[in-house]
């Protein structure tokens, strides 16, 4: 194992609870207690800071290979580390599509070489995301990337037979199908949430029923074939109800919500500013409240950023011409703190569950989302919950400038990120990648 040094974190509030010292040595949490001796360790004063498990994103678009003008694995994972992440799932809609063992291994290797976080490629469900033929899911599962999550994200696996087969097939290697729930015929040309605002703005509506009908179908399919379903970026109150119903029936379904769907509503579209264009679209305040309640009560398991960087020319245009998507890695913690913790709906321990523990479980990441205890891998972050900052997309590590939170003041700041025992972020700024990265030439494993 590569040596990552020894760090003594002094006086951090573990999961928002009691303040303790945490000794990190060679990638492992060596000891937790009070008044630990530094013994030559680098000391980090964590007074007033909350220690949390490193965040795990189940839904990230790193854009590489293919759209390196939007983001690369290097820039996207720098953004992830700054945002408090120690693992991200890289979505499959790259160019070429991550639908073969070769492409997922390429993304995996780029992640290793970058060294900022664990990059776990998501494999496409169907060849070329075309929704016609299963991709070689088994080959991706057996590859060095050890893919467990499969998704055609951006496009719904709308053919019910194909969805059924995918759900059945991934049981062979404990995989999960992450569905982008969007009935395509009900959303042809859709531009925004269908409702009072779309009626006034004259933009083609994306009705809630187009999401809910697919989720309803898929939970029944998952039940029928006894498989595991994950629902990407749930956005409506009705979807929360359906998932709650499914869980009560014992169906093995998990769900994610994005930070932006926890805070923003379709009223923002009145500006016609495409920075607010996203898929699924921003919904109503009633939906926001239902999503918050669902996340708090466990109906929704995790927060996934759906970090979707775009070059500026794809946003500086007419609404209908603009690309869908928002950046999210560097604002997720703050938005969730604002929407869930400062509203009293969740504690920091709940935060750890929805941003780390549950997310690692969905992706079957054994070294992530672990308890902060002696002997566990040292993937953890230090957060200053009292910090306030104003979002400036031009100061972010991501190449995407399309943050819908631009100009907003948000709480909470990641002060340090420990990735496998190495501080990738210190004093709120990027430090260095994990030393293993130097030993990993890109293009080789």
């Amino acid at each position: 194992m590569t040596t990552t040094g020894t760090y003594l974190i002094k006086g951090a509030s573990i999961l928002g609870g009691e303040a303790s010292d945490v000794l990190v040595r060679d990638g492992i949490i060596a000891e937790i207690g009070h008044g630990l001796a530094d013994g030559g360790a680098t000391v980090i004063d964590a007074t007033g800071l909350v220690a949390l498990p490193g965040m795990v994103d189940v839904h990230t678009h790193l854009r590489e290979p293919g759209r390196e003008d939007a983001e690369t694995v290097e820039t996207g994972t720098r953004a992830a580390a700054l945002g408090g992440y120690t693992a991200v799932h890289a979505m499959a809609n790259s160019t070429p599509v991550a639908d073969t063992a070769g492409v997922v291994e390429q993304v995996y290797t780029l992640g290793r070489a970058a060294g900022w976080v664990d990059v776990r490629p998501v494999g496409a469900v169907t060849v070329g995301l075309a929704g016609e033929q299963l991709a070689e899911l088994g080959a991706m599962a057996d590859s060095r990337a050890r893919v467990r999550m499969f998704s055609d994200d951006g496009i719904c696996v709308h053919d019910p037979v194909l969805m059924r087969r995918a759900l059945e097939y991934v049981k062979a290697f404990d995989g999960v199908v992450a569905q982008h729930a969007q009935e395509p015929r009900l959303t042809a040309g859709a531009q925004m949430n269908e409702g009072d605002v779309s009626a006034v703005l004259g933009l083609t509506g994306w009705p809630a029923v187009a999401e809910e009908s697919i989720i309803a179908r898929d939970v029944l399919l998952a039940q029928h074939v006894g498989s595991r379903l994950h629902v990407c970026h749930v956005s409506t109150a009705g979807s929360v109800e359906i998932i709650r119903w499914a869980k009560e029936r014992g169906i093995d379904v998990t769900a994610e919500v994005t930070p932006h769907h926890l805070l923003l509503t379709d009223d923002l579209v009145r500006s016609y500013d495409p920075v607010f264009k996203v898929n699924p679209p921003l919904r109503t305040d009633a939906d926001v409240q239902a999503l918050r309640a669902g996340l708090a009560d466990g109906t929704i398991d995790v927060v996934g950023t759906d970090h979707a960087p775009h070059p500026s020319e794809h946003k500086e245009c007419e609404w209908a011409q603009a690309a869908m998507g928002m950046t999210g890695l560097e604002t997720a913690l703050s938005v969730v703190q604002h929407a869930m913790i400062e509203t009293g709906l969740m504690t920091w321990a709940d935060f750890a569950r929805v941003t780390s523990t549950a997310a690692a479980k969905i992706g079957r990441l054994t070294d992530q989302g672990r308890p902060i205890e002696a002997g566990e891998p040292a993937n953890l972050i230090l957060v200053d919950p009292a910090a306030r900052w104003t979002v400036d997309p031009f100061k972010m590590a991501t190449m995407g400038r399309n943050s819908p939170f631009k100009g907003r003041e948000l709480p909470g700041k990641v002060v340090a990120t420990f990735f496998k025992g190495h501080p990738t972020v210190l004093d709120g700024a990027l430090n260095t990648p994990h030393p293993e990265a130097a030993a990993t030439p890109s293009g080789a494993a």
Partner: protein
Amino acid sequence: MKHLLSTQDLSLSNAIRILDTAEEMSAVGEREVKKLPALRGRTVVNLFFEDSTRTRISFEAAAKRLSADVINFAAKGSSVSKGESLKDTAQTLSAMGADAVVIRHWASGAPHRLAATDWIDAGVINAGDGTHEHPTQALLDAFTMRRHWARLAGTPSEGTDLKGLRVAIVGDVLHSRVARSNVWLLRTLGAEVTLVAPPTLLPVGVEQWPCSVSYDLDQTLANGVDAVMMLRVQGERMNASFFPSTREYSRRWGFDDNRLRALDDLGMTDTIIMHPGPMNRGLEISAAAADSPRSTVLAQVRNGVSVRMAALYLLLSGDSREPAATRAPAYTAPPIKESI
């Protein structure tokens, strides 16, 4: 007024000011020399991303009657064949010194983008954006209705609103920027609006609009109506199952000869029939209705030039200055009639 983007955010006083200024402008159209020097040396660009000969020549005539220099820029683009971006086009026009941009665009909100960004500093007039708004069409419709309403009351139309006027807007409301702009403006002016359409051609959310909704044209007529505005029906809607056939549409929601007779039978002698054009004769309006004395179709076209002159004038010369060669002053604080 810096821009004219929608009627939803148009105040009553600004709406009345535009309509009153349009009355002054219409006097110019009746002169032998149909020209004012008001905008001499100013440049108006007609930026059309969508074909619309009628609207473009109406704006062109309006600008020319005010002595502005007019540039027609037909930037026909579609979501499929993407050419130069709106940003680059806007910056190009800005560099050429455009004072006002009249924009027609297939994308809802494109005029708002021009006005909200720093791509161009010119005044922006929305000449129809997607299925969002068409404010000058609604203003010319209101102008037409106001003249009719004032004539019935035996008063000059200047300064008046449309309080008490019952208007039915009939047809494809879902895809109609004309309907949206009319609903907001007519409400501001005090008219009572009923939308009449097949349920498939009404937007989800219409229940929040300040108007009534009906699926039954005959019942709406029988309830009493002072102006019936027929919307154009696009033939391609039929292929998307919005209604079963054009004949069924025509029978249920077209203004046909039977309904024209019904107006007479109901004793509604003063009810006018409006259409923004171009008409599908035999589909949403019968030839007899289109050509009847009730039809205001041509008056609407005529009034369109006056209203667009008023909009250009108010945007480019500010609210306070008078049109240079009209006798009556532009109203600054028009009296609004409480009842008609």
